[in-house]
């Protein structure tokens, strides 16, 4: 077992475990509660009966079929998607902040979100089906990160700094390309679709689109969970990592590949949702400190809870939808300001 910062203090350890445990359970509770929320009124018992109806056939016979389909095929996948996307952003943000040793890093550091945005705009302009948009966004997210990565190989100086720079450059490149697409798009229908997509929304989630999200997110989360103690070592610096028997370069590449796949899968279904990957790791650090052994599970739980709540607001506050990216910005920025002011912990 790797050394842990708080091993010597069993009392602290116990209270931390309770906090961590409740933060992992919180998204599950919010998930169940959110299922009863919506403009279509169907009381909590109705929702529970509909949820159990695939197991007990006669349970929901008196509930209109529309309501059953609404719960099982629209609300359920959507809230599950909010949970997964939030968890994914929370975890990738934490992991990337650790390996870049930089608290301003979020999931988009290597341009994956911007690349995905360009891919989606491209598909919305020339193809149009939701599937094509999702695949195109995913592929261009990976293309953007690959470009940043290949670009950084051209230089032999401090690789992380160059990689960060390349990420910013590739991000700018793709955001210019997206602007170009928006300029040529028809202002009456394609342009609003592109704008709406770039602001992020979980409106168009269906079970069919969930599979890639579930595979990459759950796979990625399990992987990050298993290697979470190595994040501590990597955040110490390359020399320390080497002396502790971890190959920092390989490890970093593996983590970048993992977070890129996770982010691309999330962005391709949800559109661009900013701030979660930046705010949640800071909030997590404030609660449990910088030890990734605890920090990673906490940011997963916090991220999932945060996005479920924000999505609840987005889909119920107004008759129409509020773009998620707008809400996470409006809620996330003040939170981050407060956190940064209060934060006395290291990163």
């Amino acid at each position, binding site marked *: 077992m790797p050394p842990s910062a708080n091993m010597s203090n069993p009392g602290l350890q116990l209270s931390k*475990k*309770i906090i961590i*445990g*409740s933060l*992992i*359970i919180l998204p*599950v*509770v919010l998930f*169940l*509660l959110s299922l*009863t929320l*919506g*403009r*279509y*009124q*169907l*009381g*909590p*018992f*109705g929702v529970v009966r509909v949820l159990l109806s695939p197991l007990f056939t006669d349970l929901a016979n008196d509930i*209109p*079929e*529309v*309501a059953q*389909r*609404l719960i099982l*095929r*629209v609300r359920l996948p959507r809230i599950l998607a909010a949970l997964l996307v939030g968890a994914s952003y929370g975890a990738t943000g934490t992991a990337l902040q650790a390996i870049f040793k930089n608290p301003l890093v979020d999931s988009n550091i290597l341009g994956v979100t911007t690349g995905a945005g360009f891919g989606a705009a491209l598909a*919305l302009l020339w193809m*149009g089906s*939701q599937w094509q948009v999702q695949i195109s966004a995913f592929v261009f997210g990976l293309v953007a990160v690959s470009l940043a990565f290949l670009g950084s190989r051209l230089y032999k100086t401090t690789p992380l700094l160059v990689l960060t720079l390349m990420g910013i450059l590739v991000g700018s490149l793709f955001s210019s390309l997206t602007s170009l697409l928006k300029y*040529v798009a*028809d*202002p*009456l*229908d*394609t342009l*609003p*679709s592109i704008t*709406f*997509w770039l602001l992020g929304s979980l*409106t*168009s*989630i*269906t079970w*069919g*689109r969930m599979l890639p999200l579930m595979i990459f997110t759950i796979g990625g989360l399990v992987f990050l969970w298993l290697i979470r103690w190595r994040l501590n070592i990597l955040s110490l610096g390359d020399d320390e990592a080497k002396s502790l028997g971890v190959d920092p370069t390989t490890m970093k590449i593996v983590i970048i590949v993992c977070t890129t796949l996770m982010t691309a899968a999330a962005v391709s279904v949800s559109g661009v949702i900013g701030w979660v990957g930046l705010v949640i790791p800071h909030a997590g650090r404030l609660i449990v400190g910088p030890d990734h052994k605890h920090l990673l599970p906490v940011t997963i739980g916090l991220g999932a809870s945060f996005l479920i709540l924000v999505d609840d607001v987005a*889909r119920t506050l*107004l*008759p*129409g*939808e509020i773009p998620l990216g707008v809400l996470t910005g409006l809620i996330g920025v003040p939170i981050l300001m407060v956190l940064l002011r209060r934060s006395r912990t290291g990163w």
Partner: protein
Amino acid sequence: MKIVKSIILLFVILGVSLTACSTIITQQEVESTEDVQQPPFLTETRQDESPQTNLPKFTITAENQLQPALTMLFQSFYPDETPVFVEQGGDIIATSELEIAGEHPDVPAAFLPGGYLIPQSDSGAMFDFISFAVSEEGEKVLIDKGILPASVTLTDQAGKTVEINQPIERVISTYGPSTSFIYSVNAQNRLVAASYLGARDPFGAAMMEKIDPRFKDLIGDEYFSQELFSVEQSATLEPDLIITSARTSWLETATELGFPIVLYEAETPERLEEAMRITGQLFGPRAIAYADTWITYYNHIIETISKQTASIPEEDRPQVLFTGTEPLKVASGEMYQTSIIEFAGGISASSQMGGYWQEVNLEQIALWDPDVIIVPPYGGASVEAITESAEWQILDAVQEGQVYRMPKLVVPWDTPAPDSVLGIVWLAQLLNPETISLNCADEAEYFYNTFYNYEITEEEIATICKYE
């Protein structure tokens, strides 16, 4: 131990929240579609006429294949009575052969696709029967008895084949032009929510409310539009059909609820006619008759103008520039506006451009040197933005005051909607006043009376059929 604690905590939270929420017990508002088997006036009519014992109320002269349907309609309108069919000289003639023709054709009273009722006398009972036969109730009777099909299968404008149960009684239209199609086939009473074209400004909204008193309840721009579809709200409305544009971004989620969806994309005159035909098919025989009448009228207008301007050589036709919501955005050759200009006997200055509204600079416009500039009646576009701008004075058209705003009553006359037929007439009169015999005021009166069932007043006509 901690896990057990956590689980207990979870259950406590769940339990508290469920009890709190349990007071909100669902009350599904199922709007009872009033099952009017017989219209209210029926009882009066029957009391008046029943003392006259065995005399038939009216006689019908009908082709043999139409008689079963008529008998069913008659017996459901007057239970316990049988219709009297005569070989010749009936009060009503029922025929399958009727040509919709003439300058201002009436919409035939169609009770079947290819089954029309023509009144021959002025008996009140007869007119009551005819209006029953062509109504939604009449349609339901014929569907129940298996004479009209219980579902229609059609290919929508995205090329998708859909099967839709009949009759359609609750429809959501999330696309402005398709809402105008529904109004024009007189099926607006089947709408439960709609997105409207041209009804966002106060004048358009007030006008739309005059046309349809239900407008305020129906307009649902905050729930439904091309970009936006509130799945939850649609579920509460329980529609049996959703109509929208082929270029909507939310189709998959709406499909999950299992409602049938019909997609429209009418950017050319041919597609517009097809859209009207599809709308007719969706809403039954009477709607088909409306669609056919509109198509006949549309083609009649186009042919009339085409004949009257045929002698004008290509190079003498006026060059028309159609600008968009901003003066420097112009209509491309692929847009419906170009077809309107060509039908009206003009030439679109910007027809070689592709795509949608295209941004150009003033030099390009000076090079085109249009004779007439048209601005649309939406999106804040105004004639003054051009005439009061110093740069635009370089154009002869601006110097001569040849800048006009396309009119609208509610739906802008330049959009691919039924109302665009008036845009063609209006523009034709402007471009070729000597050669065109058509008159915007006459056509607007016929159009709104016929296709919107709205008795348009002379003052209203005066506000739309004008050039400024």
